[in-house]
């Protein structure tokens, strides 16, 4: 690292062979992750061999044999034509052969046209394997490196000058690239993974069941489950419920969904009276299940997925790689009255002998003759009256009578305990209930329309069936009267980092916010760069044609980009001042040049100023400038005051020339 600051001062580029080596190393970098072990070992040996001053022909033949053996070992599993028809296997084979050819050619110490082209070829082949943000940054930096090496080789100058020149080329290219990227016609709708399967094995905090026993031990993870970008304004905090699964069956230790065969018997869910529709794009990271999390309640869902009667959207295939989809949901809704007796039967099923105290508390409510809505209201009041505490480290409830245990004994729990008790209590009171698990997002994890949902946002809430109103969402966790902060600290997690009441430090809040902005930047880059498609292009063109204001903004932004690029080029081309005296007088020389008076390199300053005096007889300070110039140039020591006087005189003369023009 200590040599880094001295790098720009390198006077001239290394020879072509060294420059090629640098380019080859850069181009080979992504292939190190795809080449098989034998090829990697061969590459390492070849690299070591290049340090030798002389390599005999026999050694080169030996390495050719070694390379061929490495290729055979690397592809031993694909000894058939069918395997080679798979693009990635074929490309891998091409890369291996290219690596062999390059190393052999390099060992011969002869630079030919093909060796010069090989870094470009290796660089292009890497695109078959990766399509990530990292690859984007790698591609751009390698491109810049190639440019720098080429320019440096041509210039044969110090590195800092080559850096400036390649940066100038880069700055000039940016507006063109932006314009081409946005407007270059795209015809392909499909993105390919070239047969690559994701090796990202992951699962989310939501798994379709809800445990109350020891398996329910909560370990909130900050791993991102999905990212959502809303088309318009983000819904309110109390509307950010993403449905995962709907649980009907109370198995004491856990709640579970109805078996799939029962779901097939009923009609698909339908929303009636949908209002406040919200459209959004979701980037869902692999969780190895089929759930596509959508906001309550989904009205439009992606292709190759289905919506069931519980408004759960599931994909036809397992989500084993990052999936991007669009959807829309009704934030205010009313569901179609439940027609299936199967669901209603399960939604009322409870063991009345299991929780006697709870049964006693709601028995009067059940027999009161109140309608479901009134009963639900009373239930909420009862729940609130129990003064329950939200805790991430609660005692395990007694599974012999879990509702009684939570409501009257431990009184501490988190969403699963609240939801299970509330749902059971509702059933005891005669109200059909079910538990919905999924994610409850928090607007504190949002920037503008962008929202991040993490595993720690996994949540359970309850839906009660209130006759004509259909299924209505209830949030029993919100009925807790206090938070058990000590439990939060013991878990060393920050759930409500930005809560003004929580005791988080400024650094923690800053870290959270910075992380969020980083994710937003990454998402925006992915959304607009990696996943820019014909759909987005068509939408952009449509908007440009219809919205004059937007068109103006885009044109304005592009002009601004050109200006910025020009300023950058100008800055890069500005030469640092080697000659102090000349630099002070240079503005005047430039001005005079514009006026048609150019000082030739062989002309003395005195002679030139004489010519200027004849052209501008009204400027009476030229002799002063000449005197100061001669003193500064040929005096014993350079004087700051002298230079500043010269600067003032130069400015005066420039003004005088300008005035004459006016």
């Amino acid at each position, binding site marked *: 690292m200590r040599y880094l600051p001295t790098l720009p001062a390198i006077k001239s580029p290394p020879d072509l062979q060294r420059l090629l080596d640098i380019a080859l190393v850069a181009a080979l970098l992504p292939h190190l992750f795809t080449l098989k072990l034998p090829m990697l070992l061969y590459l390492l040996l070849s690299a070591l061999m290049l340090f030798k001053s002389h390599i005999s022909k026999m050694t080169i033949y030996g390495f050719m044999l070694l390379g061929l053996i490495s290729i055979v070992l690397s592809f031993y599993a694909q000894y058939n034509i069918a395997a080679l028809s798979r693009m990635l296997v074929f490309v891998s084979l091409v890369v291996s052969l290219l690596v062999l050819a390059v190393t052999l050619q390099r060992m011969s110490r002869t630079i030919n*046209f093909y060796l010069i*082209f090989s870094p*470009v070829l290796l660089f*292009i082949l890497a*695109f*078959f394997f990766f*399509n990530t943000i990292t*690859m*984007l940054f790698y*591609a*751009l930096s390698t*491109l810049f490196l190639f*440019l720098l090496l*080429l*320019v440096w*080789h*041509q*210039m*044969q*100058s110090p590195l800092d*000058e080559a850096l400036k*020149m*390649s940066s*100038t*080329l*880069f700055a*000039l*290219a*940016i507006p*063109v*690239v932006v314009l*081409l*990227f946005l407007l*270059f016609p*795209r*015809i*392909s*709708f*499909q*993105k*390919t993974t*070239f047969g690559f399967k994701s090796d990202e094995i992951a699962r989310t905090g939501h798994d379709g069941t809800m445990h109350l026993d020891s398996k329910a031990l909560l370990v909130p993870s900050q791993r991102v489950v999905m990212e959502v970008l809303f088309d318009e304004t983000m819904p309110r905090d109390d509307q950010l419920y993403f449905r995962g699964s709907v649980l009907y069956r109370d198995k004491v230790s856990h709640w579970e969904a109805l078996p799939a065969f029962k779901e097939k018997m009923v009609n698909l869910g339908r929303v009636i009276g949908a209002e406040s529709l919200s459209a959004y794009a979701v980037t869902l990271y692999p969780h190895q299940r089929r759930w596509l999390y959508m906001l309550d309640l989904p009205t439009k869902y992606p292709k190759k997925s289905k919506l069931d009667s519980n408004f759960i959207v599931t994909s036809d295939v397992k989500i084993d790689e990052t999936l991007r989809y669009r959807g829309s949901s009704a934030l205010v809704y009313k569901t179609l009255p439940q027609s299936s007796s199967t669901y209603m039967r399960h939604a009322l099923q409870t063991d009345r002998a299991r929780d006697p105290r709870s049964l006693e508390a709601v028995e009067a409510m059940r027999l009161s003759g109140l309608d479901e809505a009134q009963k639900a209201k009373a239930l909420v009041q009862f729940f609130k009256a129990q003064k329950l505490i939200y805790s991430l480290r609660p005692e395990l409830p007694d599974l012999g009578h879990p509702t009684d245990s939570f409501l009257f004994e431990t009184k501490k729990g988190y969403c699963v305990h609240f939801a299970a008790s509330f749902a059971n209590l509702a059933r005891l009171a005669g109200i059909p209930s079910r538990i919905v698990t999924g994610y409850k997002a928090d607007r504190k994890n949002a920037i503008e329309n962008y929202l991040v949902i993490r595993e720690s946002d996994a949540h359970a809430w309850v839906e009660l069936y209130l006759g004509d109103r259909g299924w209505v969402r209830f949030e029993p966790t919100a009925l807790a009267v206090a938070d058990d902060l000590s439990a939060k600290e013991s878990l060393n997690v920050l759930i409500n980092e930005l809560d003004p009441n929580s005791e988080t430090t400024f650094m923690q809040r800053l870290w959270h916010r910075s992380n969020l902005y980083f994710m937003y930047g990454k998402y925006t880059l992915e959304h607009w*760069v*990696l*996943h*820019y*498609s*014909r759909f987005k292009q068509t939408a952009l063109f449509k908007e440009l044609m219809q919205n004059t204001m937007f068109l103006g903004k885009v044109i304005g932004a592009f002009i601004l980009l050109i200006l910025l690029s020009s300023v950058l080029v100008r800055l890069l*081309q500005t*030469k640092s001042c080697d000659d102090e005296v000349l630099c002070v007088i240079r503005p005047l020389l430039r001005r005079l040049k514009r006026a048609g008076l*150019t000082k*030739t*390199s062989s002309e003395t300053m005195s002679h030139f100023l004489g010519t200027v005096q004849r052209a501008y007889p009204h400027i009476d300070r030229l002799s002063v400038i000449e005197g100061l110039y001669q003193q500064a140039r040929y005096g014993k020591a350079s004087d700051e005051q002298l230079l500043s006087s010269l600067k003032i005189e130069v400015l005066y003369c420039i003004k005088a020339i300008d005035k004459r023009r006016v």
Partner: protein
Amino acid sequence: MRSLRTFIRIVSSVKSRPNRYFTLLVITIIGLFMLAYMHNYNIVYLVMFFTFSFAAASSLIGRLNLDALDARVLSQERLFAQNASACKVIVENHTSRVSYAIECTYAGQSRGIRRIDAYKGEIIDFDVRFDQRGEHDCLPLEIASYFPLPYERFFTFRGLHQKVMVYPEPKGVSLQEYYRQSLTLIGERDDFEGLRTYQHDDNVALIHWPSLASGAGVMSKQFSHTRQDTTLDLDFLSCASSDEARLSQLCLWVVTCEREHLSFTITMPVQLLDSKKMTTDAILAYLASY
């Protein structure tokens, strides 16, 4: 508008010619295009657009690199037909930019200049050769460069803005030989007027050896005219058989006379050329343009 005019002027004055690396560039762009277009692969699109834009930006910078340069002849030796002469050319950079990787070519000779700093110049030497006598225009100097990217060669021609006089090829009988053949013209060392006593500062070559041998003492030969005082009379018509041969012969003698500090006159058909009244260059120019 002014910038546009400047741009058009630069584009029209500095030309470019693609080379084999240009083919490579095209193949790379096509390859990237196919990869990107088939799969809507945005990273590849970006790389393709960047490659294209670098090439376009390089085209602009390469032209600016050469547009700033001018060339003029700094000094040159006398030019004689069929003979090579050294010529110094200065290539100047009149802008605040540095020009890089310059290659100057004049009459098939190439000279490389690594860089020319802002407002500075570099001097290069060329051998100049003309086949025929007379007034000629200097050939334009080709200034070329592969900077900044080597896929195309930028080049421009700079007229050296100079008319040069090429003198006849100096050839024929040497002046000494001619003297020997024409003894009556200037005499020999023994054609002295008389003898005198050797003086201390007399040239040893003037000693009259027969006198010394006969015991008459050391005597010096006395001449009525010394060599320096001799004005050679050269005649155009009698010196050779054809005009071109005559001009070449006279050119050779003029150059020899100049070297030997001899005065001369040349009798031309319509004019007498006197070295005391005309400079050697003027006489040579007369011969060149005859």
